[in-house]
């Protein structure tokens, strides 16, 4: 039935001149043709379509059949497969390229998640054929095609383990490899232009489309992917994909070092400046940097002569971006990039004027957030390691400025405690012969110490909350009093001591006594309450809800435990404080 309808409409249209087909003609052709193909009469349809007399008809209307064709082809088990393939090839040759393009891309867009990989791998070659037919005007179509394809491909799940990448169940690796084949002729075309003219205009449309494609790939899926090194996985399609993207960038005239340093070098305001920013999204460049310096992708096309400090400066922008995200994969990449960039730099070499740059302060702040707030413990630990590494690379003056800044802005007792430990190490280093300097020994030390040896709320400071900071600062003070002899007083601590006693030690002692008394009283009352009413638990004053779940009340035993450990903590603080007071007293006794 449908076949007859098809023959009818075709015959009727043969007579129409100048392709003045009516919408009904189109509809009839579409419905009849579709039905024929679906019913398995593709052989007949093929014979109609290849008929020379029907050339115009095919050119105008042929693309309509794409939908059904593709469905058949995707099923793959149909005995009509060869005919459908033949129909498709013929259509691609003869049909109007623009319409064909639209039709094919529609098919790609409409693919459901289960069949994305299949559809893409099926249609890439046809798309390429059609695009090449467009000749000089293909640039925007290429762009459209690439963007549609990438959007679909990035919906595919990213393999995490080596086995998943090998199995490639969802087809991401296949699609990436296929995409590389797809873009090859277009890249070659650009390379020819470069060869002939010795240069290429930055605004060459095809080049711009390829650039957009590379940038988009770097952001998705490459930023998500964790590449395995050749020792772990010898043949990795994703690694090849990454390598090829970088090579393409290089081939179309983008210098990798220039890309890297975009964020750092001041650019002249050129017309279309905003477009420049859009052309080189920061996230893609961050991925590029990670590929180069952590995964060592395409490292042989990257010059080895860049100064490590300059590389660090460039990368700080990307590290800042990555560390300001919350996804663990981004944080992991940010930490890796930071670590690799720092390792290249000599210890004690980064000068203080680097701290003027915004990123050299915002990155540590982000790092602190990772160290204190990230739920993943491995990331927290790694964050701390990289934090210490970054401190080691600053020179003495920069360390001083950094510590001062962190103490002023951090508001987290653990971080402050860690910084104070570093200050102690620096003072220790400076006291050794030949290491003297103005920052941790001379006139600048005392202002820093005032930041260390202070109680934010005087005697009423919450000692438990600030335990880390207090313990580290007491340790520092004790160390200095023992190490720096009174008659040498290289650090100036002895002359400052009376002020420290007034501003720090005495309020601390008061606070300690108060807190101890308070907690001991609490402890006593809880114990008594426990004895009196062991059965009826008093209704607590407040309830704690976590994630919509009310936590059970603390039993009296738990309360006692908590209070007891608080008292122990105060004892701990007191022991160090007592020791310090002893040392001071001993020195103040006149020499006999």
């Amino acid at each position, binding site marked *: 039935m449908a076949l007859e309808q098809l023959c009818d409409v075709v015959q009727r249209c043969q007579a129409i001149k100048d392709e003045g087909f009516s919408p009904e003609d189109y509809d009839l052709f579409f419905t009849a043709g579709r039905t024929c193909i679906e019913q398995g009469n593709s052989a007949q349809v093929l014979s109609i379509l290849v008929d020379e007399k029907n050339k115009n008809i095919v050119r105008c209307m042929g693309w309509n059949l794409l939908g059904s064709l593709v469905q058949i082809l995707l099923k793959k088990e149909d005995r009509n497969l060869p005919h459908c393939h033949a129909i498709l090839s013929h259509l691609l040759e003869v049909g109007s390229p623009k319409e064909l393009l639209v039709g094919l891309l529609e098919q790609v867009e409409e693919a459901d998640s289960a069949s994305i990989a299949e559809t893409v791998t099926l249609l890439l070659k046809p798309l390429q054929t059609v695009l090449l037919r467009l000749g000089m005007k293909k640039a925007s179509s290429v762009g459209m095609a690439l963007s549609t394809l990438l959007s679909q491909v990035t919906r595919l799940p990213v393999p995490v383990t080596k086995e998943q990448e090998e199995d490639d169940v969802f087809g991401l690796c296949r699609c990436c490899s296929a995409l590389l084949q797809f873009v090859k002729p277009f890249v070659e075309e650009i390379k020819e232009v*470069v060869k002939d003219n010795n240069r290429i205009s930055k605004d060459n449309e095809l080049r711009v489309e390829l650039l957009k494609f590379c940038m988009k790939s770097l952001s998705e899926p490459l930023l998500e992917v964790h590449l395995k090194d050749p020792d772990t996985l010898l043949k990795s399609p994703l690694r090849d994909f990454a390598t090829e993207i970088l090579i393409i960038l290089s081939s179309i005239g983008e210098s990798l070092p220039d890309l890297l340093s975009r964020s750092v070098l001041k650019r002249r305001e050129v017309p279309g400046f905003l477009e420049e920013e859009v052309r080189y999204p920061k996230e893609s460049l961050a991925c590029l940097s990670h590929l180069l310096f952590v995964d060592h992708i395409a490292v042989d096309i990257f010059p080895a002569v860049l*100064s490590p400090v300059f590389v660090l400066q460039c990368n700080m922008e990307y590290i800042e971006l990555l560390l300001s995200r919350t996804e663990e994969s981004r944080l992991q990449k940010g930490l890796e990039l930071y670590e690799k960039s720092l390792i290249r*730099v000599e210890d004690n070499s980064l000068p203080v004027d680097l701290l003027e740059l915004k990123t050299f302060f915002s990155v540590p702040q982000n790092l602190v957030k990772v160290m204190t707030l990230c739920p993943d413990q491995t990331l927290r630990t790694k964050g701390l390691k990289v934090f210490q590494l970054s401190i080691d690379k600053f020179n003495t003056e920069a360390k001083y400025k950094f510590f001062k800044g962190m103490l002023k802005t951090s508001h987290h007792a653990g971080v402050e405690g860690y910084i104070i430990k570093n200050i102690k190490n620096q003072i220790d280093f400076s006291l050794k012969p030949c290491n003297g300097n103005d920052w941790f020994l001379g006139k600048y030390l005392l202002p820093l110490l005032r930041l260390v040896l202070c109680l934010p709320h005087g005697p009423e400071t919450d000692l438990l909350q600030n335990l880390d900071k207090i313990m580290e600062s007491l340790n520092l003070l004790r160390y200095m009093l023992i190490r720096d002899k009174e008659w040498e007083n290289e650090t100036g601590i002895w002359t400052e001591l009376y002020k420290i006693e007034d501003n720090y030690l005495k309020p601390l002692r008061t606070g300690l006594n108060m807190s101890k008394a308070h907690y001991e009283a609490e402890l006593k009352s809880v114990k008594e309450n426990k004895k009196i009413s062991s059965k009826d638990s008093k209704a607590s004053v407040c309830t704690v809800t976590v994630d919509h779940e009310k936590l059970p009340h603390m039993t009296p035993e738990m309360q006692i435990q908590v209070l007891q450990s608080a008292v122990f903590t105060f004892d701990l603080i007191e022991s160090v404080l007592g020791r310090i007071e002893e040392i001071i007293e001993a020195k103040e006794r006149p020499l006999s």
Partner: protein
Amino acid sequence: METNERTAVDYSGRRKRASTRPTKLSGLYVLKDVLLLNLLLFRESFAEKELISAIQRLRKPDPYEDKPLDLHAESLSISRCSFKTHDALIGRLQARGARHSGAFMMAADPVRAWSDEQLKNEEVPKKDLIKFIQENAAHSFLAEHKLLGNIKNVAKTATKEQLVQAYNQLFEKKRFKGTDVDVVTEQVEAAKISDAPKETKTEPADEGPPKFTKSILKKGDKTNFPKKGDTVSCWYTGTLENGTVFDTNIPTSAKKKKQTKPLSFKVGTGKVIRGWDEGLLTMSKGETARLEIESEWAYGKKGLPDAKIPPNAKLIFEVELVSID
């Protein structure tokens, strides 16, 4: 040989038979060492040898020298029994001690060798006076009074009055050796404390000789040299000392060379390793040179394992400076 009966005073202070000739020890100034005071204030004249051994016993070994000062090795011309030589001896020993030990310096300031009358009477030769002042005064004092240098020359230029004036001023103002900063630094050096801090390597300062060498393989135009901040483009090949090529931007075929661009960057601004920044500034347009860069101006102790550059590696680059913008 004179037969003075001299007796030494032992340290319990018991005097033995006094000598026959009284001596004058006028103008005795600061003497913190109580025993030496005992020795000298009793206006006894002592045998030089006893004096030397007494002083030797008083002196502690020089902390900055391994052996105690060997006073017998002093080549001092001492004539027995003359007052001025005893004082001069003490003065010289003290001055010598001052040079070698701050501790002894604290014990006593130099003592006037002659009284005012003696100086007026022309008893004291100019040369002795000059010698005394030179041995006891601070360097800056000598400089101010133009008493530095060879004694003969000083004697020619300075009059007796000037010398006497300087001598008196020395004692009035106490500008003795050791009161000057330069003596302190001498002592510091003697104590082998180096005060050069090690923090200077942060500055990429122009210290020391350049850490690279250049040999020209092909001459450039010799007129266009890049300045700091200019954008230069170059082709290069980098090898290690053993010949391994670790980096190059020169493509293998000539055809490909048309498709690749030379490396461009702003020279002299710290974007590349220092050897390159410094080396390229010495090249002219069109020049091809061989730069051998020491590791300090390349990748130093760390090397660049990613690019197969080992630690402390000297790098050799063949660079062609194509253009300057």
